[in-house]
Structure formats: structure tokens, C-alpha cells
């Protein structure tokens, strides 16, 4: 049996994404795997009473492999625990925006005419503002909590699915290949990319230090923002409070993007 480079890339990507998914599921059903009882606050990862971060070390057990951040919170277990919040928001936002976007896109293409034009202008209106700020505006209105965040990201993201559906549908009509299977295949790469992209958005929004009721919400962006002193801490050479969380989420986003790219290639090859 021969493997080409594409198979290897797909295999590696699936392996890493699966690791993140396993951690996410364990966060929900059995958080004790990271030696904590619950994931209600970042303070459960508090290793020392010192507010000053301590550097990464391999000598004091796995909790200290990535060092500690503000309030003595261990970074590595906190990162693993953060997947519960980040991926929950990501999956729910993704599902809502995909269903809403595809639904509206379907109506636009099915009815055509003036309604299609109206929907086009609706989409262009929503994408005429930086979507990050649209999300913050919605988050302001919906109030900063998990539901508000899901609403904000869904509103900011669903116009992209409307456009994608319209494009995919038009492409299908032109090539005479429209069908549920074909449409699903065309959407699969988008969904994979969005898993990473929306996770990134969740991290970015929480990095802003949005006024959550719980200032210690267990999330990667909040872990980096904690205390709002990132720039000051970096000036003292405390690099690990940013580099490890960034690396942790970038690996996930990178592999979802890679998997999406390779699957796109597989679909294109099958088309030929």
C-alpha cells in the first residue's frame, strides 16, 4: 500500500484534530484528567500564591511545563481546560451560522429575482463593516456571556455562508453537478476551515478582555489577557504567557486549515 504526501498530510491533520477533540470531550465529561474538579474558573489551576508568573520548567511536574501566568495559574492544564469553553462556543456558532447562512442562501437561489438581490444587499451591508467590530457590537447588546458570544459570532459569520452557498450553487448549476452529495462535499472544507477560524475569533474576542461576569472564564484569550498587563509583562521578558497559548491554538487552526486544503484537493481531483 502506497501513501502519497496528501494522505500523510490528511492523516497527521486528523490525528492532531482528534487529540484536541478528545481533550474537549474529556473537559466536558471527566475534567479530573487534568487534576481539577471543575472548569468553572481559571483559579482552579492556581499553582502558587504569587501573582508573578514563573518560567516553564520540566522539574516540577507536568503542570509547570508551560510555566505559570498571572495569579500563579499553570498554563498547560489551563489551556487543556480552555477547550471546553472555546470549542463549545465555536461549534454552536458554526452550526447556527451555517444553518442560517445556507438556509438564506437557498431561499435566495430558489426564488431568484428581487429577493436574491435584496439578500445580496443584505450580505454586502453586513460585510461592509469589519466583522470583528460587528461581533463586538452584537456582544455589547447581547451582554458578555457564553450565549452573547455565540450570538455575536453567528451574526458576524453567517453572511459568509450565504455567499458560499450562492457561489457553490451557481457553480453546480453551471457545471450541471448540483446535488446534495456534491454540495456537501463542497462545503466540507469550509466547515473545517471555520472550525479553526471561529476558534481564533473566540480567542481574539476574549483577549480584548471583554467584561465577562466571570473575569476568570476558562478560555485561551482570557488566559493571555488576564489582568490586562500583557504588554507590561512582556517588557519584563515574560514571553511564555503569550507564546504557549498562541502556539496551542495555532496548531489546531493550522491543522484544520491543512486538512481543509487537502480535502479540497481530493474533491478537485475526483472532479477531474
Amino acid at each position, binding site marked *: 500500500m502506497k501513501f502519497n504526501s496528501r494522505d500523510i498530510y490528511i492523516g497527521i491533520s486528523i490525528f492532531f484534530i482528534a487529540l484536541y477533540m478528545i481533550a474537549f470531550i474529556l473537559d466536558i465529561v471527566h475534567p479530573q484528567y487534568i487534576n481539577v474538579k471543575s472548569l468553572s474558573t481559571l483559579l482552579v489551576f492556581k499553582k502558587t500564591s504569587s501573582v508573578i508568573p514563573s518560567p516553564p520548567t520540566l522539574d516540577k511536574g507536568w503542570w509547570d511545563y508551560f510555566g505559570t501566568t498571572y495569579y500563579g495559574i499553570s498554563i498547560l492544564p489551563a489551556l487543556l481546560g480552555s477547550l471546553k469553553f472555546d470549542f463549545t462556543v465555536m461549534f454552536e456558532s458554526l452550526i447556527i451560522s451555517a444553518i442560517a447562512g445556507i438556509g438564506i442562501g437557498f431561499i435566495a437561489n430558489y426564488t431568484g429575482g428581487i429577493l436574491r438581490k435584496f439578500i445580496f444587499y443584505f450580505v*454586502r451591508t453586513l460585510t461592509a*463593516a469589519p466583522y470583528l*467590530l460587528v461581533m463586538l457590537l452584537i456582544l455589547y447588546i447581547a451582554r458578555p456571556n457564553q450565549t452573547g458570544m455565540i450570538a455575536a459570532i453567528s451574526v458576524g459569520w453567517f453572511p459568509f455562508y450565504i455567499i458560499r452557498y450562492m457561489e457553490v450553487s451557481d457553480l453546480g448549476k453551471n457545471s450541471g453537478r448540483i446535488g446534495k452529495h456534491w454540495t456537501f462535499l463542497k462545503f466540507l472544507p469550509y466547515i473545517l*476551515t471555520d472550525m479553526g477560524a471561529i476558534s*481564533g475569533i473566540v480567542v*481574539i474576542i476574549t483577549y480584548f478582555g471583554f467584561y465577562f461576569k466571570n473575569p476568570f472564564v476558562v478560555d485561551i484569550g482570557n488566559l493571555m489577557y488576564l489582568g490586562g498587563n500583557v504588554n507590561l509583562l512582556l517588557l519584563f521578558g515574560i514571553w511564555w504567557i503569550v507564546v504557549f497559548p498562541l502556539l496551542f491554538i495555532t496548531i489546531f487552526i493550522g491543522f484544520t486549515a491543512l486538512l481543509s486544503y487537502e480535502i479540497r484537493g481530493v474533491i478537485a481531483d475526483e472532479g477531474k
Partner: protein
Amino acid sequence: MQWRKIIGILVKYFLIFIGVTIFLFTAFKFVPINIVKNDFPGSSIDVLGLHKNIVFQYFYFLHSLIWGTMGNTDTTLYTGAVSRAVFITVPETVLFLIITLAISYTASYFIGLRSGTAFKITKTLNMNIFPLMFLYFVSGLLLLTVFAGILGWLPSQGILSAGSVAANNWISSTGNSIYITRPTNIILIDSIVHGSTYVFFDYLRHMALPFFSLFIPTTIYLSVFISHEASIEYNKKYMKAGITRDAFADNYVRYIKRGIKSRILSDMKWMFVVFMGGMVLISYIFSYMNTGELAIYSFLDYEYGIMGGIYSVFILSLMIIIFDLLIDLINRGGKNEI
């Protein structure tokens, strides 16, 4: 015929402009009235026509947006009239946008077409689908960590150092890190007008990290895209004709450039929206004086920020609409989006 097309484009963007104002008005109507009253004390709330029918309220709101009567703001960044805060930051925002986008665009064409590897790097297209917004986040934080934190070569935040502000009476501070400079309110130009090399280089030092944080991801994205489009164009036009000469040896590049121009311009519109989002993000990370930074700080302050936030989003949206309008006017022969 040309005029009809131009009028069609103008009508399209006018409708999008109206759509944006309706969206902002809808969002504004969800804000509790006691919060709105914070920004419009006493009788000043009358400018919003809140005692009128909701349809008329929209026109009052539109009038306020156009004339900048958006009340006051009191955030970490600025205290005072919303319109003043926005108009102080807009010149710097526009300058930063133009400099960064123009240099990124030029560099992308250079890398995408002239590097000699242009037609061989489509395999790196996976960068093209890596979320651009997150690339901005990564580049911003990494550059901050390495060059401001570990190496300490460049300033980590702000647009000018305290020394520059204190030593020059043509620079005045209005808040935490918002500065007004005379006569143009663009620091780069004003430092040349006043012959202050210290402020000039101080400004460039502060600009370096935000600039590269935007420049690197944008250039990666655009150059890969240009290379990909050029490769398709080359295969379509020249490979089929059996021409096997070196594409870089003569005028092929010029013809390819002409061939891909329309598609590149169309994509630039979508890229610009993400680019603006990136600029907002970068300005927050580096506390770089900017309308985007003002917008974020406004939304972060629940009690006194909403009108500042809405007006900043409106101004940034206006920039996007004008950019898209210009692109469509230049690219009149391109595909009709509708």
C-alpha cells in the same frame, strides 16, 4: 453605456451605505435608554428624536451620523465629544491604512510575479486558507513578544513617546494616548513641517511593529493569491499555445498582469474587510492611536461607550464602502457580483 454602468455602481454603494446605517440604527435601538442618556445628557438627547415615531427616529439617527452629533464618550482612551475623538484619529488611521496596504500590495506583486518561483509555489496555497484574521493576531503578538519584550528594540505601545509630547508644543495630548498635532493632525507630516527629526523617527519606531504585524500576513496572503492567479492565467493563455519559453524572459508578465487584474481587484474588496479588521486588532494590541482602537475601547465600556463605538464602526464602514466603490469604478469590466 459607460455612464449607465457608473451610475449603477454609485446606486449600489448608496444602497449599501443606507443598509449600514439601518443596521447600526437597529443595533442602537437595542441599547437601553438610560445608557444612551449617559452620552446625551439633558436636552441633548432630543437630537436623536426619541420622542418621535421609530421611522422618523431613523432619520434623526442618520442626521446625527452624517453631521457627527453623536454625544459624548468617557472611556479609558478618551473623554469628550464622540465626533472629536473620531476626527482626531481618522487622519492617522487613513495614513496607516494607505501606507500599509500600498506597500503590502506592491510587495505582493513583486513576490508573486517576479521572484522567479511565482509559478512553482501554488502548493503553498494552504496559507491562503489559513484564517487571515488569526494570522494578524499571531504576527502582532509574536512581534510584540520578540522585538518589544525579549529584545527590547522597539516600543511595545503607543504612537509617540512621552518625551516627544513633552518637548514639542505643537503636540497636545487629549487623553490616555490620543494626540493632536498641528497643522494637519498627521504626525508624520507635522514632524516634517516643524523640522523635528526626533519626533519623525520616534513616530516611525512606534509604527514599525504595527506596520509589520499587518504587512507580513497581508503580503503572504496576497502574494500567494497573485501567484496562483498568475499560474492559472499562464496555463490558460500560453501553455495551450505550445509556448514553452521562460515566462519571465520577456513581456509575458505584463500580459499576465493585465489578465489577472480584474480578479485580483475583485478579491481585494473581500481582503480589505479582513485587512480593516486586522488593523483594528493590531491597533488594540499595540495601543496604536487609531479609530479601530477607539471602537474597541468604546465597546469595552458598557456605561459610556456605545455612541463612540457606533460612530467608529460607521466611519470604518464608510472607508470600506469608499474603497469598494473605487475598486468597482476602476474594475468596471469585472464580474457583476449580483
